């Protein structure tokens, strides 16, 4: 299944003035025939994907579907051949530094440094994104305020709860004013209240800045509630694409049922029986998820 290349329908179109030479607004992320293999295992297998500017795009799928590998290709962490991945028109293979400057990235693990305070954690990312000294304090303050951590800023991140660490990571990603925020399983291991808290802050920040959000999750309910569009990924490819509403209606029509199915039903339909025997390189992901869950407590 391929993505339709229709123009951006973003509700809050971001100002494309900053450094965008191209007249046609490029897609925030476009992957063409993206393939990445770990040895024999093809984690991503000919993936086509287009994320429009300003939308919250959810990449869904079970462990081992290739979500994290896709994210790692988009973030330049994994080397990809030229022409396969573009971020706002910049090739992830040729313009790594240019791509990185557009990104805010929150990995799957709880990755704040427990030996530093919340403020120091954010300040580090202000420094490595070249925020000049005179505006560093103000910018760090605003990032911390945007995620509701102003009061806890001077405490060591090691004393934070799981939800707070996630929000701190969000602040770290936001301090450089990214145009694309990439969240890999942002709510894994969090309790329901913390999950809602993380999503509320993501949404509030998006409303304020108009940034594009690419998020992976295997919580179908979250995707249904918070994503503008979703791509259902299975065995390294996007198997269905559209708004959660579209996908659910589509299945209802095909099945001829009156009650609207859930996104999970859609996923079962798309993945078919293959869901059970998925063996695709999931061990590392499971392991790191477990580790994250342990750290969250």
């Amino acid at each position, binding site marked *: 299944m391929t993505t339709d290349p229709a123009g951006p329908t973003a509700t809050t179109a971001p100002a494309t003035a900053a450094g965008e030479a191209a007249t046609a607004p490029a897609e925030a992320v476009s992957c063409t025939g993206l393939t990445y293999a770990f040895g024999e295992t093809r984690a991503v297998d000919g993936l086509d994907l287009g994320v429009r500017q300003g939308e919250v795009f959810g990449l869904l799928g079970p462990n081992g579907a290739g979500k994290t590998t896709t994210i790692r290709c988009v973030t330049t962490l994994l080397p990809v051949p030229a022409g396969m991945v573009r971020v706002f028109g910049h090739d992830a293979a040729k313009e790594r530094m240019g791509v990185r400057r557009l990104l805010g990235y929150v990995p799957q693990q709880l990755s704040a440094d427990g030996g530093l305070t919340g403020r120091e954690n954010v300040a580090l*990312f202000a420094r490595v*994104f070249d925020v000049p000294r005179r505006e560093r304090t103000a910018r760090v303050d*605003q990032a911390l305020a945007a995620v509701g951590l102003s009061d*806890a800023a001077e405490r060591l991140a090691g004393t934070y709860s799981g939800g707070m660490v996630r929000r701190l990571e969000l602040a*770290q990603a936001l301090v450089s004013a990214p145009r694309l925020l990439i969240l890999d399983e942002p709510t894994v291991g969090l309790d329901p209240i913390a999950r809602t808290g993380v999503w509320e802050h993501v949404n509030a920040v998006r409303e304020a800045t108009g940034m594009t959000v690419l998020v992976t999750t295997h919580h179908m309910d979250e995707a249904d509630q918070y994503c503008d569009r979703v791509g259902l990924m299975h065995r390294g490819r996007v198997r269905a694409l559209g708004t959660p509403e579209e996908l659910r209606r589509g299945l209802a029509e095909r099945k001829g049922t009156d009650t609207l199915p859930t996104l999970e039903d859609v996923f079962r339909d798309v993945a078919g029986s293959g869901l059970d025997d998925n063996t695709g390189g999931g061990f590392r992901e499971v392991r790191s998820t477990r580790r994250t869950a342990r750290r969250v407590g």
Partner: protein
Amino acid sequence: MKSGAPAAPHAASADRTPGEDTALLLSPPVPRAGWRLPPARVLALCTVELQKLRHDRTELYTRAVQPALWLLIFGQTFTRIRAIPTGGIPYIDYMAPGIIAQSAMFVAIFYGIQIIWERDAGILSKLLVTPTPRSALITGKAFAAGVKSLVQAIVVIVIAAVLGVALTWNPLKLLGVALAVVLASVFFSCLSMTIAGIVLSRDRLMGFGQAITMPLFFGSNALYPVSVMPGWLQAVSKVNPLSYQVDALRGLLLGTPSHPAADFGVLTIAAALGITAASALLGRLAR
């Protein structure tokens, strides 16, 4: 969530309305010019290292125990025995620069464990997705290790001074000492990060660290002059950067005859080679 304490912050954050003052979060910072980028990254990572040390000094104190014992027990005993030719100075004075170098090396040689931990915790991925070239990241980490080692070395220098070792207090010479400690630590931490890039696991790196620290230490002039070594050990000492570091420290701190040009030359080249090797292997840690 089992513990009750962390529940409060969620409620507190809920009534906050984010987005009221986010003006700066709308404009991306202007990129620094290419040549100014590596020094800025080195500064950023060194700052982080010092901040961590400020919050938790436990490691600094526990790591001071071993060098203190070396000086106190080994040093004082061998000063009485007079078994080792030291060129006319008390043995404890002779070995003090060696112990300073050793304690700095121990900090640096286990620095690779930290980078593997940062990799497992996702911190490394996050840093790699910032506009930081890999060589700049490694250089930053290496100098951060240098800063940490330097703080450790200062503690040992103070212990040595308390034990009555006649050290120089000439600020210029002490600056030279700092430079030698940092350069050597850059090399040893890069050695550690290079091995980290090969073995990719903390446990294996611990094993390697244990396996190489003692040969590096005993295969150097830290405890005895090169002249009393058997031929094969002299050869080891000749290619061991620790020997050049000790030679430089001895010359600067005690005023004994040394070869500063060769010492600093070798340490600089070793540091540069270390950074190159560790940068080349960082990609393996990123995967």
